[in-house]
């Protein structure tokens, strides 16, 4: 039998407009109840090393000292569903976020003296960003993203150039990435894989906004994701998991492990590394001498290099626009 969605707790927040006191339930689709599901799982159409296109623009929000807007191009399945809509259930989703930097500005009165720039990061999903409605108050995963993002950027910023001042970096996620295919039940290996893609996007967008704010950095730091997936569709049960760059979790049956890095190509340095899954137990294909986590990190760095080229192009373009006024 199906598990009926539970009624969402409605917090009675007097500063917001609350829905019905009785609570509401997300819609249940009849097709969802049939075994096997009505639609087929989205299939990855890209090569394992191909990344989704990234749309990145900086300097769109004039009231901020720096800003950027980032979008991942939808996977082929989502693009098809958009151009020729049949089902109301989207097969996948593609990251969309907006990032602003405010400052440098004085530190709050209560703060201790700092000879360096103090970076504050804040990541928040819009309530409509994910398959499940998000609350208005930051949850653990959003705080987690903020912390990971902060580490990633701190390694790139030359903080001693900006004594006793701070910048606030805020990211609003308008559309998040899926953690798995929507019709899959959560399984053992399951983690919030989509969050890793979100973090990679946050890192790239934040770096662009910081460059737009003219805060000194060692390099433009970009984010990249790689995952080890086992798609049973190959019929070969002994098949080793395959390494996929920029994996869209909706397109894979099972993600064994994934890794996201924040990477600075000019120095070949990683400022943030986050590896999830049981990578130590995974054996790679024959002939590959690397351990699984080495392969994941290499893959993630390759993905980050790809994002870096988009990032530097966006930063350069904004600057050239300013240098040569129309």
């Amino acid at each position, binding site marked *: 039998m199906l598990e009926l969605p539970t009624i969402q707790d409605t917090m009675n927040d007097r500063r917001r407009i609350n829905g019905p006191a009785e609570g509401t339930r997300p819609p249940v689709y009849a097709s969802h109840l049939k075994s096997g599901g009505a639609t087929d799982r989205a299939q990855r159409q890209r090569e394992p090393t191909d990344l989704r296109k990234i749309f990145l623009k900086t300097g769109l929000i004039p009231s901020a000292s720096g800003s950027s807007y980032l979008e991942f191009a939808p996977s082929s399945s989502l693009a098809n569903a958009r151009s020729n809509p049949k089902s109301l259930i989207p097969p996948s989703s593609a990251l969309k976020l907006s990032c602003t930097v*405010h400052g440098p500005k*004085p530190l709050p009165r209560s703060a201790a003296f700092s000879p360096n720039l103090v970076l504050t990061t804040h990541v928040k999903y819009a309530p409509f960003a994910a398959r499940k409605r998000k609350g208005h108050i930051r949850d653990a995963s959003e705080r987690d993203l903020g912390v990971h993002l902060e580490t990633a950027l701190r390694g790139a910023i030359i903080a001693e150039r900006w004594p006793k001042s701070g910048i606030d970096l805020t990211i609003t996620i308008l559309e998040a990435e899926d953690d798995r295919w929507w019709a899959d039940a959560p399984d053992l290996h399951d983690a919030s894989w989509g969050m890793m893609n979100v973090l990679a996007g946050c890192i790239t967008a934040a770096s662009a906004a910081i460059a737009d704010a003219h805060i000194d950095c060692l390099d433009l730091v970009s984010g990249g994701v790689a995952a080890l997936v086992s798609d049973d569709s190959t019929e070969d049960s002994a098949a080793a998991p395959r390494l996929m760059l920029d994996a869209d979790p909706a397109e894979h049956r099972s993600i064994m492990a994934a890794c996201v890095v924040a990477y600075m190509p000019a120095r070949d340095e990683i400022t943030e590394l986050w590896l999830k899954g049981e990578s130590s137990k995974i054996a790679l294909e024959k002939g590959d001498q690397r351990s699984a986590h080495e392969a994941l990190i290499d893959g993630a760095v390759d993905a980050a290099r790809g994002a870096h080229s988009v990032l530097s192009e966006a930063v350069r373009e904004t600057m050239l626009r300013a*240098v040569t006024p129309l």
Partner: protein
Amino acid sequence: MTTPLPQVAIPGQCLGSASKYTAGPGTHIQQSNIYASIAGPVILDPAQPNTQTKSTLRVSRTIPAKPHLASTSKLKDRYNTLPAVNSIVLARVTRVQKRQATVSILVVLDEDSLDPAQTSDNDNIASILTSAANPENHSTTDELRFQALIRKEDVRAVEKDRVVMDEMFRVGDIVRGSVISLGDQSFYYITTSRNDLGVVMARSEGGNMMFPVSWKEMRDPITNASELRKVARPY
């Protein structure tokens, strides 16, 4: 092998060898190479002739108003746009006490040039017009601005012991001052003890803009009443 310098650079871009150039503002050195740390036009300041010093490479924070006028090299770039020692600032008086006045820094001017084209990068009209100076209330604005103190002994150079703060500044006055110290975690220290420093704009008790009549007096053009201030010498 001399690779030509790029016209513009982005953070992390290699600009040249540290053995050939000195690293200026907007750059940093890594493994004896100079890298850009901000995005902007690359500017080479030639070394003084007859000296052993190397030319300085820097990345400018300011976009030249007219790109073909590359004579911006006279302007000195700073490492940041924060108030620094000797920076000239324009600030609004927010509080006057017996021993000191508190001000909120509105604009940091460059000490070397009073060239109107020289403004910090976020100081363009477009960005000012989009943002409200005080989104919610006044206190928020001051939290977004750097705070500074003018101590009683830093108000003027002469008759220091006869300074009465109330006769020097009033809340709301715009003051030109020079930063003397970065101070503690919350305040910069600024001085007005020069002829060209002090109150540059003030309103009378009647609410009218006053004009300076002497180094310590301003007058309301409508009521003709005069008020005491530490007046900056007008240009």
